[in-house]
């Protein structure tokens, strides 16, 4: 097996970059608040993938520890965001962000 055929660091990093850009597209283009939260999760996962990639290719475990922290914070962020979404739905009967132009209390 030649060395050029091996899966290197770049392959994983490019998958991570593609995922991050897809999440960014979702944030920018979609209007449903829940789908935007899902896109944020996608971006966080892309970053986790690059952390684990560096951790593996540099034989350094600290990347995996950081990934654990990121996962906990992402779960907390998702719960807060969904609670806010439920609140907004109770108030506006709508989750499309183009209807949230009057957010004054």
């Amino acid at each position, binding site marked *: 097996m030649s060395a050029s055929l091996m899966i290197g*660091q770049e392959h994983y990093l490019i998958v991570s970059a593609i995922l991050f850009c897809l999440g960014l597209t979702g944030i920018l283009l*979609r209007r*449903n608040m*829940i789908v935007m939260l899902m896109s944020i999760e996608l971006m966080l996962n892309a970053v986790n993938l690059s952390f*684990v990639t560096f951790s593996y290719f540099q034989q350094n475990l600290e990347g995996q520890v950081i990934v654990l922290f990121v*996962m906990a914070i992402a779960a907390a962020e998702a719960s*807060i965001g969904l609670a806010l979404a439920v609140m907004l739905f109770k108030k506006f009967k709508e989750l*499309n962000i*183009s209807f949230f132009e009057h957010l004054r209390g």
Partner: protein
Amino acid sequence: MAEIILFYFLAAVTVLTAVGVVMNENPLMSALYLVLSMLGIAGLFFLLQAPFIGAVQIMVYAGAVMVLFVLVMMLIDINKDEEKFSGGNISALFKGLTVGVFAGLLTSIILRTPMSTKILVAQQATEVVDIARLLFTKYVLAFELLGIMLLVIPVGIVALTRIRGGTHER
């Protein structure tokens, strides 16, 4: 050889389902695609010899977080979703341009950075013990802060759901 095939398979599944998350018009289908994408990323973690992180990924993301999303969608009427993509052609053009520029920036950084291409000698899976040792010695302060944050978050959510009206009325 099996590793290469597995990598390309997992990468294709992850990326295609991520496209499904962004492009699907039904938020419930988006959530289901997101589960598949998370599972693909967990498979990539296993391939990177990080089985503990992969297992946590499956449990926390594909399990807990996605159940939370689907549960909230049950509470919310998602049948009508007109105007699912934002506004006019001009703004869409600028958004596409932004993403394109950012993607080009990332790829050029990745491709221009000299990566160490040498294949590692000892490629055995990381043990949970090693992660735990690092977590409870060097990062113990961050770990405790994370515990405090996880205590504050439920309190905040309960406080949030008990607010009636806007910020100006009690």
